[in-house]
């Protein structure tokens, strides 16, 4: 995003009459020929779903018969559906994971940014959960959470009462799933923050230390403002993926026990692929999309558009 094409071509224009060959019909055709396969698939699988999905939200559709326009009927049905509301509530509750994951990944990034021997090993180790499939991660944690499993062993060692799997308990199940999201996500955001920290560079921090700033002052006045663009990107990504939480739940709890982990997208999924009510599912999806946009904007405001003012 550092060089927009316009700026690029203007700069090139200064040096030698424009970027690339002359604009002719032939060159334009060549350019589009290069992009054609990509654009075709992009339109079919990315653009078309946005429009057709929005349209479907206002229809009754079961694939066999053509979509039938029903106006706001789907939204009325959703408003009266307690399962949808509890799914939405759980998806919003899931946002709790965002501040925790951001705080921890910044802390971990600062930790692995230290020039210590063997730090490469730790960075790699923290990244292993990131590159593992949710299919595997979900299964592993289902086992870890079993009644006599390692998680309960740790809880007992800490003096906590641990009976049964945390995933089978309606009070703890959602938090147990959140922990897996946290565990899998930290490494990803750590890498992003590490890149952000390295972009700040040591000079500025060292200069502040020489000027007599304490570590905390350096962190608050130099490091954090410098990280602001990264914080925007990361909190945006993690908020949106929290609202859209699905795969963890699909593998580990299927929305249970007693609907305690039923998320908004799990609702969408089961309406579409179990009940074949594609219109209703699309309407639920549209609501989730609007909510993610809303939270995206809030994020943008909170981080002041991610502009570093250091």
């Amino acid at each position, binding site marked *: 995003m550092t060089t927009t094409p316009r700026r690029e071509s203007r700069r090139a224009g200064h040096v030698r009459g424009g970027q690339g060959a002359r*604009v002719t019909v032939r060159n334009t055709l060549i350019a589009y020929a290069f992009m054609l396969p990509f654009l075709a698939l992009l339109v079919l699988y990315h653009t078309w779903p946005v429009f057709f999905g929005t349209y*479907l939200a206002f229809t009754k559709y079961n694939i066999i018969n053509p979509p039938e326009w029903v106006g706001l009927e789907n939204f009325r049905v959703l408003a009266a559906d307690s399962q949808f509301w509890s799914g939405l509530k759980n998806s919003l509750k899931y946002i709790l994971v965002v501040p925790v994951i951001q705080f921890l990944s910044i802390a971990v990034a600062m930790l692995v940014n230290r020039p*210590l021997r063997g730090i490469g090993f730790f960075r790699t180790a923290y990244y292993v959960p990131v590159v593992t499939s949710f299919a595997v991660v979900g*299964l592993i944690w289902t086992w870890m959470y079993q009644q006599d499993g390692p998680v309960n062993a740790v809880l007992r060692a800490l003096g906590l009462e641990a009976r049964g799997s945390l995933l089978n308990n309606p009070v703890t199940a959602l938090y147990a799933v959140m922990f897996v999201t946290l565990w899998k996500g930290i490494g990803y955001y750590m890498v992003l923050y590490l890149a952000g920290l390295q972009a700040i560079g040591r000079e500025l921090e060292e200069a502040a230390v020489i000027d007599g700033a304490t570590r905390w002052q350096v962190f608050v006045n130099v490091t954090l403002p410098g990280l602001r663009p990264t914080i925007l990107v990361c909190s945006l990504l993690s908020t949106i993926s929290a609202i859209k939480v699905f795969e963890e739940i699909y593998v580990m709890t299927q929305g249970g026990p007693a609907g305690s982990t039923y998320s908004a997208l799990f609702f969408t999924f089961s309406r579409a692929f179990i009940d074949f009510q594609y219109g209703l599912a699309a309407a639920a999806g*549209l609501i989730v999309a609007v909510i993610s946009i809303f939270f995206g904007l809030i994020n943008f405001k909170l981080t002041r558009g991610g502009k570093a003012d250091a």
Partner: protein
Amino acid sequence: MLKEAVSRQPSAISPTYAELRARRRRKDLLANTLAYGVLVLIALIMLYPFYWTLITSFEPTGDIYRAKLWPSGFSLRNYAEVFRGTTVPFWRLVLNSVIICTLGVTLTVTLAALAAYPLAKMRFPGRDLIFYAILVLMVLPNEAGLIVNYITTIKLGLLQQTNPVLDAVRQYSAVVLPGIASIVGLFLLRQAYLGVPIELIEAARIDGARELTIWRRIMLPLALPTIVAFAILEFVAYWNSFLWARIMLPDKELMPLSAGLLELSGTFSTNSRAVMAGAVLTILPILVIFAFGQRYFMKGIEGAVKG
């Protein structure tokens, strides 16, 4: 900096300086020990679940879910059971994954590499418009994607079943096609191309080289590090994907390994150790790729963010 300033006038301050340095070293040692302690603790939390799965998968019998540091016994029975493929056709799933990854990675990288070239280095009407439209698409959340893509897949007839060979081809394409137009990939490669000096390209154009030749002979080699990074990221993504294939494929025989693993856990609930062996086997290729391509990985992700 401090060291230089002090050493220029050694005799007067040196005792204090030595003291200072000793104190500093002690403080550093303490801070480093503390840092290592925390680093090791986090590493344990991150890696123990994998390690635990690995050792449990080797145990023939015993308390399966118990927390432990060493396996209580050792046998390859669980692996033998997975390999035998009595519940899921393991080798077939591996083959499916290999085909899906090969097709997916090749097509994704090629199409992004082609499309990024005009956007970075050619002038034509609509260039900025296309670029910004693609960026908007990246930001736009697309919750209906799964549903509409499923409908599209059916309407394209990709899930029809007529004869075995054709079915396989159609279903592989049904798995792969929705993921091929990668906006992030387009972005990364455009970014890499922007760094290629325009003089090189213009010299080639003056020599009468065709654009496709320029792309193949100049752009691709010079963008190779980004291409490798992107290919590794895509390999991991295709290898790990399971949801789309599981939702859509009617034929369990044609599922990739990650999706098949869930099938295994569903049908093989009596022998969780065999499922654990399956999980270990599913992770293995990723770890190998990761070990070799770690550096590229990180670069790829940083690039994706810095844009």
